[in-house]
């Protein structure tokens, strides 16, 4: 093999950074009518409802009819004394933390594993990625069977078969275990997503760097720490952001596997705001919870963009 490699293409970022404009693109500009249909639909489906939702968070709206009165911060005062909502906030943060760390950790290991000369690398990529394209509802029901509490079904049967029968559990029925069982389902489904983003990053790491480091006597771990890891920064940024937003807004897997139970043990902000609106008819309160969730997502996005960007430039 020769040492000639193509210059690394910008691995993940699409051309043209957001927020940076190309000036003087020729003088002839398209009419603004080109943007009008998209703007109209976007305003109707996202902008107007979001503004209306943020507004009704300060009312006692029941969702039926137009009757509502302004109640100021009453919904938020109720929220800080609502054990179900506070528990849901705690669960949401725990789930997000577990998913961000473990999903990306496994995703990185899988990417490093298949980014080698092993013969099965292409088929392994397809296998690990496949759950990503399947509906979370179906993946949740698949794992609901795996977590069957019966001692002779699913995961319990498998543990028994390999001599680990002592570890059998009621995976979704045990209040202190259920949240981690749900987290693992999400991790199983999405680790392949992290993997392909890391793979795109790894493909942008120039092979010459590894060669010259090897010539200088650097071992596998040293090369990973000083070459691969810093150059993976953009992939880390994307993966952490995607999994954080995914974790904070987790809904489908909870509804399909536990419906928030046992008790409130697996309720998240999304399931609580759903139940408050469509089970208890407290629409105003529900949108207050939604506003808190939106602020979390926005805050986390900004902090992460800032922190991870600075890491990229110093790397």
């Amino acid at each position: 093999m020769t040492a000639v490699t193509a210059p690394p293409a910008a691995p993940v970022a699409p051309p043209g950074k957001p927020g940076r404009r190309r000036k003087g693109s020729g003088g002839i500009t398209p009419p603004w009518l080109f943007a009008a249909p998209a703007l109209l639909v976007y305003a109707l489906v996202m902008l107007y409802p979001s503004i209306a939702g943020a507004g009704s968070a300060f009312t006692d709206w029941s969702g039926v009819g137009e009757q509502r009165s302004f109640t100021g911060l009453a919904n938020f005062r109720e929220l800080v004394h609502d054990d179900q909502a506070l528990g849901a906030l705690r669960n949401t943060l725990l789930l997000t933390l577990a998913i961000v760390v473990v999903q990306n950790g496994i995703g990185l290991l899988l990417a490093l594993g298949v980014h080698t000369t092993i013969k099965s690398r292409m088929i392994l990529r397809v296998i690990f990625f496949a759950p990503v394209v399947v509906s979370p509802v179906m993946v949740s029901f698949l794992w609901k069977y795996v977590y069957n509490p019966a001692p002779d079904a699913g995961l319990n049967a498998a543990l028994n078969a390999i001599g680990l029968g002592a570890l059998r559990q009621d995976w979704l029925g045990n209040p202190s275990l259920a949240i981690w069982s749900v987290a693992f389902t999400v991790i199983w489904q999405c680790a392949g997503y992290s993997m392909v983003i890391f793979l795109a990053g790894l493909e942008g790491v120039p092979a010459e760097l590894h060669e010259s480091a090897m010539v200088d006597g650097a071992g596998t771990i040293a090369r990973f720490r000083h070459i691969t890891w810093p150059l993976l920064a953009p992939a880390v940024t994307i993966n952490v952001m995607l999994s954080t937003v995914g974790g904070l807004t987790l809904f489908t897997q909870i509804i399909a596997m536990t419906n928030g139970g046992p008790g409130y043990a697996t309720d998240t902000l999304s399931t609580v705001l759903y139940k408050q609106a469509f089970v208890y008819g407290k629409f105003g309160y529900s949108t207050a919870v939604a506003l808190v969730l939106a602020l979390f997502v926005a805050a986390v996005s900004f902090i992460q963009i800032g922190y991870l960007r600075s890491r990229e430039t110093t790397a």
Partner: protein
Amino acid sequence: MRTGYRPRTLVRELVMIAAAVAFLFPVYALVTLAFKDPEQIANKPLSLPDPPSVSNFSEAWESASLGSALLNSTLITVSSVLILIVLGSLAAYFLARTASRLSYSLYILFLVGIILPFQLGMIPLYQLVNDLGLLGTYQGMILFYTGIQLPFTVFLYTGFIRSLPADYTNAALIDGASHLQAFGYVIFPLLRPITGTVLILNAVQIWNDFFTPLLYLGGSGRETVPVRVFAFVNEYTSNYGLVAAGLVLAALPILIVFLLLQRYVIRGFSSGLKG
């Protein structure tokens, strides 16, 4: 470059294959379950079905009305994706090629939609769709997906168009073509790579979406595959073989499309993201 196949490579290969086998255990459990009758499920939970029975599949197909659910999902996904491609690329063309304060503000406005969780507007939107008489209709779902997926679509197209030289369109415009003609004949064909990404990411997202179709389509007879499966599984909870067969059938169409187009799908997912 990496060197050839060494003993260490073999060890790595075996470790990765072992990981894949463990990873696939749930799938093995589900698929074998689908081919078993209740007696085999009770007595031999993890063994291969012997003899395999396919009666679960025909019964699940009927009970979950999967045929019509597939049609509903296809109709909603295809229509939404086509509209997204047209509206998104047109808007992005204006945003990428106009250096005014208006176009920059509009671009930022679209970007806000990427981080705005849809839960915030969920209830007012439900009311709006209800007021428009679109609850339980295909049109309501198509409108929803177009609006909710536009910010990301516009973002992808704008970044791509900015990287293209402007000369082509200018030449066409000077030759007397209208803006729409210049876009349709000159620009749009150049967007093929990013259109592929837009198509794949939006189609997978819309096909698999669960919450909004549950809310908008529940009980209408126009339910998509995930909504039908949800109702089906909750109805037949304890009939494991039947539920497993339903899940296998419902997941199969998108898995087949994925296997046929795997290179494009994986590339779309790993390249089309914000960086």
